[in-house]
């Protein structure tokens, strides 16, 4: 699967067919003290995660997501089935040097401060002292904990604990990052930063496995997902495959006079029944609005808590390219992305009954305009917005993507 997908930022173009994680017939049965089966947490799961993709694990509580992740990490052993990570067993020690893991809760040592925490995990990855210190500083800066480095993790808020947890997951510059509920407990700013970071990591060819209850998180960043229920995989595929309704088309264009809109609608109504047509005005979502407010306030305020994260750590951006060159590359890539996107088919939406009500407000929505620019088809508005915002923030931090 290498086709360009306009739904996904940066698309799956960098995803290769090389399987980083391969799961076959995975089954986990928890047993009681006497060895009697107690619960079948995972039942015959099969999936592959390919290099460079963001892979989502979805499912309600108790569906088997975390159990699967723990088996991938070698913390639980499968009752049946087979797991390979980078071609090795999950218990292969050296393979773990290529994995970063953020658990669903803070399992960090509460008596260590944030710097000591990163230093400790850096030591476990056998990083040289200079490299370790450098990465520690960069990660603390990236997750916005530089100024509270002497506070112990036990004193942190849940969001701050997620941040330091995320930092430790990245200290080894992993090729596979497993994130279990990465945005749990984070403020919207932090959530956005995490999602931006995930996209930045993908841009470097990293593979990410993301487990989350927040469907918006998954939708924003994931290339492919599996949906668990009752320990079984109920659905899997790319988001496009799963979400696209191929019998609908969304068209967005600037405001026009009522007559022109009715003319366009008239043309459409000749082909489609009126009750199948939806008309509304695009609105900014709350997340975007919130980020705008906070970003404006950020420059002048000081906080005793976590500050906003800064640049993605230099080593995560990929070597020592000059910042200006990096920016140029990022911008080039973004500029290049637009025409390609324009050539694609329009985005489809799923009209709902409530949305059909909007048709009745047609007259009110169509307002007169002095000039009537040519209508244009906007491709994946949410995607474009996310990408622009991500790159405003990551303007000089996305390094040269791995091919």
């Amino acid at each position: 699967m290498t086709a360009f997908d306009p739904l996904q930022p940066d698309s799956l173009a960098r995803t290769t067919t090389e399987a980083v994680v391969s799961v076959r017939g995975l089954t986990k049965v928890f047993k009681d003290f006497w060895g009697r089966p107690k619960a079948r947490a995972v039942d015959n799961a099969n999936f592959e995660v390919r290099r460079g993709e963001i892979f989502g694990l979805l499912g309600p509580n108790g569906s088997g997501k975390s159990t699967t992740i723990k088996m991938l990490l070698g913390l639980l052993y499968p009752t049946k089935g087979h797991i390979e990570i980078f071609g090795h067993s999950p218990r292969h020690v050296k393979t773990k040097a290529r994995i970063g893991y953020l658990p669903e809760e803070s399992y960090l040592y509460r008596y260590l401060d944030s710097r000591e925490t990163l230093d400790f995990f850096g030591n476990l990855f056998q990083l040289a002292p200079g490299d370790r210190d450098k990465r520690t500083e960069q990660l603390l800066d990236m997750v916005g904990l530089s100024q509270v480095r002497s506070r112990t993790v036990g004193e942190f808020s849940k969001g701050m604990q997620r941040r330091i947890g995320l930092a430790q997951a990245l200290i080894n510059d992993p090729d596979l990052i497993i994130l279990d509920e990465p945005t749990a407990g984070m403020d919207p700013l932090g959530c956005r930063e995490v999602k931006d970071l995930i996209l930045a990591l993908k841009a470097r060819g990293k593979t990410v496995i993301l487990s989350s209850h927040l469907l918006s998180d998954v939708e924003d960043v994931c290339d492919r997902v599996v949906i668990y229920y009752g320990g079984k995989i109920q659905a899997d595929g790319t988001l496009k495959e799963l979400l696209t309704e191929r019998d609908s088309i969304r068209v967005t264009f600037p405001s026009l006079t009522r007559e022109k809109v009715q003319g366009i609608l008239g043309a459409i109504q000749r082909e489609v029944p009126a009750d199948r047509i939806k008309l509304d005005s695009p609105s900014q979502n709350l997340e975007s609005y919130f980020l705008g407010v906070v970003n404006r306030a950020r420059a002048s305020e000081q906080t005793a808590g976590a500050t906003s994260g800064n640049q993605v750590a230099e080593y995560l951006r990929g070597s020592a390219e000059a910042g200006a060159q990096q920016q140029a590359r990022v911008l080039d890539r973004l500029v290049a992305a637009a025409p390609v996107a324009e050539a694609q088919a329009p985005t489809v939406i799923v009209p709902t009954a409530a949305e059909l009500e909007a048709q009745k407000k047609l007259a009110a929505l169509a307002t007169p305009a002095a000039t009537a620019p040519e209508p244009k088809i906007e491709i994946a508005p949410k995607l474009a917005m996310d990408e622009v915002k991500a790159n405003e923030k990551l303007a000089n931090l996305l390094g040269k993507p791995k091919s």
Partner: protein
Amino acid sequence: MSAYFRILKHPEQGLAAVKHGFSWPAAMLGWVWAFARRVWVPGLALLVVHTALAVAATKLFTDNPGLLIVVGLGLQAFFGARANYLNSRSYQQRGFLYQGLVPATSPSDAIAKFKAVGENIPAEWRLGVAPPLFSLPAGLQQLLAVARLTVKAVVRYRLLPILAVLLVLVVVGLPLLLKHDGTARGLVQIVITYTLSSITAILGLVTLWLATGTLARDVEDCSMQMIAVKPIARWQVWVGKWLGIMALNLTLLGLSGLTIYFLIQWRAANLPDKQQAILKNELLIARGSLKERPLDLDAEVEKNLKERIREIGQIANGADLKQVRKDVKEAIKSQYQAVPPQTTRPWVIETGLARGQLENTPIYLRVKFRSPQYSLKPETFATLWEVGPPNATNRVRISRALTTDTFHEFGINLLDAKGVPVSDPVKGGRYQNLLAPDGKLYIVFGNPNPTALLFDLDEGLEVLYHEGGFGLNFARGIAILFIWLGLLAAIGLAGASYLSFPVAAFFSIAMLIFGLSSGTIAQVVQDGTFGQTNHDTGAKEGMLGAVDFIMVPTFKVALGLLQLVNSFSPVDALSTGRSVSWTALLQALLQIWGLIGGFFAVIGIFAFTRRELATAQSKG
């Protein structure tokens, strides 16, 4: 050469710069520097240590200048290495926020540079990292990281200060609380026996607690998951934890030992001259021990039995040969042990490699005997001793009245300055060479009493000779205690490798109690039953057949294992001026760590490696 300075900023007080790395002023000035910099707690701690050292120095500087200098310099160097970090922490505790690391020539230069850039702090300053003071070999890095983490847990949870206070109370408080009888032996009994035993008991229990807690709790609160997903083998985590606990034990036991060492030297200065001479010659010394070559009683039993069978022709049907052997063995043993009235009993001691030491150093006999007559209280008997080469003219004759069932020590080659034999060591005294040309020491005991006296084969007579100084001997004794603690740490970790904390703690304590029950176990093995033995008939009573069938052989094996651990008695040796030899230390290392500790380590690591570190949880 420019240094690196941490820049810290306070909303009201402005900027401060703290140098990164070693602080010479702190190393030189110690607590004065700390108070001047408002680093109160470390400064106060250092002041307390300085005061303690100063008090010790008034008594000990003349005798132990080297040791005091090493301790003092080490302390100052450690403080110098940590001082700037402590200073930086102190600033942050007062509301300063870290801004960056600036290369500069002085604090004022660093602040000036920082001010010059305004709000646009360069990334290399904000993220700047100073070069490390030193780096570790990569292979040890993970192990030591886990070890440091274990130590930090103890320190941060404030167990270390509590433990330190407890040890100080024992080491300093116990000798002050218990008044000795004014003799050298009384002083040693209190300062070494009581305090060292108490310290070992405290550290032993704490070691078990820590070892079970550090692993079991990490697994229970899921912190271990964060380590297990990193490229570190489980055995390294296990060994790292063990190293951390042992680092704590090394520090605490080392400091306690050092304090005891200084304390006894200090308090010895207050003893009368005669007691000081005893202390120097008999107690604060490392005396080697020589005994008669062990007799092969079993061979003699077989020889006697064969002769007897040959005499009688054949064995009667139903004869209990086992019982016969036992009786014969007892009979032979009593022949060697008993010295009938008006007879003598010789001992020939082979000196081997110790020959040189016995020729010109004090030699003591350590004897213990009993009387076959039943008595509630020790009885006193006259004893005659003759030591020296057979038929030589310079044989030493000693006559002493000694009591039964008590260890007695007396010098046999002590001379005064003029060469006249004396019973107790004197200043400027010399020592007579009593060895035969073949290097053997011949000792004869004469029993002038109307009753027989019994000298136990194992502990009836021992020759003690000067082998080395007290300092090193004390260090070796402490090292054996440290080895014991290492075993306890391994037991605790082994339990926690598969069990939850309370169960692991129970397991560890059970193992400790089992280890301390070697006397009972030995008795069961000796009697061959869990029931009682009729001492008149030797028959087993209240026998539990099936239990005995299984448990007696089990106890026999357990006793063998326990003897590998319990055959060392460093506290007893140190308090009686006996040598804890390098061989004993090596033997302890091999037996306690190599065999028993290794067994627990293998079991523990195997279990920990197989263990699933996550459990079924409600999420996901």
